[in-house]
């Protein structure tokens, strides 16, 4: 594409790349948008770590039930075939490698696939981790969805994370407004660019990039 992606466009291509029939956890914030672009005939089942499989769209009006929320504490709905379970079972499902894909936001992702998304390292910040570390190590595939540069222009795909880590070598794809990256064996592959080129990105990121998808 000829211009950077909007958030909605990013959500669309993440949704496009989720295999049909997958069990998927969408992290809080931006990744929840992905749900809007998963057609029912793709049979993707959404997991929310607060104890549910088969989560439906956000609830509106009369549908709102304070006992039925997603991990971001927003009211959601229930689809046919849903099930409820307690927190230990829910995280056993995650840690045990049963989820096919999780999609999370990030502050930084390293070329080795290390993820930093729970703490800015600011000594004054109140830390909160939630289920991010469990998702990072548990899902079979971790997709990150974020802008490629922060507000100050700093790259978020980096040689080594400087923020406190969430998980080691866990991210396999990074979806950004400017490009889609695959991370494999310490190599960074660029599979798509949006309004930029691999050469431009390589210069800005100051990391070696390989054009095209990783060999299988």
């Amino acid at each position, binding site marked *: 594409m000829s211009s950077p992606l909007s958030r909605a466009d990013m959500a669309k291509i993440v949704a496009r790349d989720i295999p049909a029939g997958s069990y998927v956890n969408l992290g809080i914030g931006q990744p929840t948008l992905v749900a809007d672009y998963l057609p029912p005939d793709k049979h993707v089942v959404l997991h929310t770590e607060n104890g549910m499989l088969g989560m439906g769209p956000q609830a509106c009006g009369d549908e709102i039930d304070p006992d039925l929320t997603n991990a971001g504490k927003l009211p959601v709905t229930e689809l046919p075939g849903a099930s409820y379970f307690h927190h230990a079972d829910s995280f056993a499902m995650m840690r045990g490698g049963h989820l096919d894909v999780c999609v999370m936001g990030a502050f930084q992702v390293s070329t080795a696939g290390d993820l930093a998304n729970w703490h800015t390292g600011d000594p004054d910040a109140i830390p909160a981790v939630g289920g991010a*570390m469990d998702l990072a190590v548990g899902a079979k595939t971790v997709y990150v969805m974020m802008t490629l540069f922060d507000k100050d222009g700093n790259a978020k795909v980096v040689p080594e994370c400087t923020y*406190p880590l969430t998980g080691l070598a866990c991210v396999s794809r990074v979806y950004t407004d400017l490009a889609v990256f695959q991370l494999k064996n310490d190599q960074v592959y660029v599979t798509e660019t949006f309004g930029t080129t691999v050469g431009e990105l390589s210069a800005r990121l100051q990391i070696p990039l390989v054009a095209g998808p990783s060999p299988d």
Partner: protein
Amino acid sequence: MIEVCGDAGDALRDLRDGATVLVGGFGEAGLPFGLLEGLLRCSARDLTVVSNNAGNGDSGLAAVLATGRVKKIICSYPRQVDSWVFDRLYREGRIELELVPQGNLAERIRAAGAGIGGFYTPTGVGTPLAAGKEVRNIAGRDYILELPIHGDVALIRADTADEAGNLTYRKTARNFGPIMATAAKITVAEVSRVVPAGAIDPESVVTPGIFVNRVVLASGPARSGPARSGSAHPGSREATR
């Protein structure tokens, strides 16, 4: 047989200074509001609270924290848009925080209830939350050792209780309730109704009665419709106060 308590204060009568209190809920879903109000009126101090969050707004768990009687909280996600009570106490150094990844928190509570002395989890390896914890490579993967979290009292919100103490829950309000019920010396469940033994289908019991000591009827109308199998039973007591 469970004890059906007249009010939350009665249900919390033996709470001692220094106790560890497990509080169910994820945000407000499954938070036992009535029992937390009872906790507000208790005099016990130096409490350790174990809960996923550290309170929202000024009611519920936040109101309990505001009393200054909680010295430590063990949770996964204290910082929220409306966690100002916790935020202030934390910045003033008036409350200790043990931050635990949510899945490790759940598994540590389960381990306490299941008599497991400790377990190896991959969650947190290589992160600041593994600091000081034993790391062990098992079958080619690194794990950290986590220990159980036992409670003196568990305060949980369920949907229906029967007189044998069996509990069902509602939707994602189930969350930490079933595991906390197993991990405390005394478990108190706030419920929408109490039905006779046998009115809950034995296949659908989520928390068996062995884990429940006391129940209190929630105030206000129940969110749920009548119990699936116990509604028509003449002996059922609904929360209507």
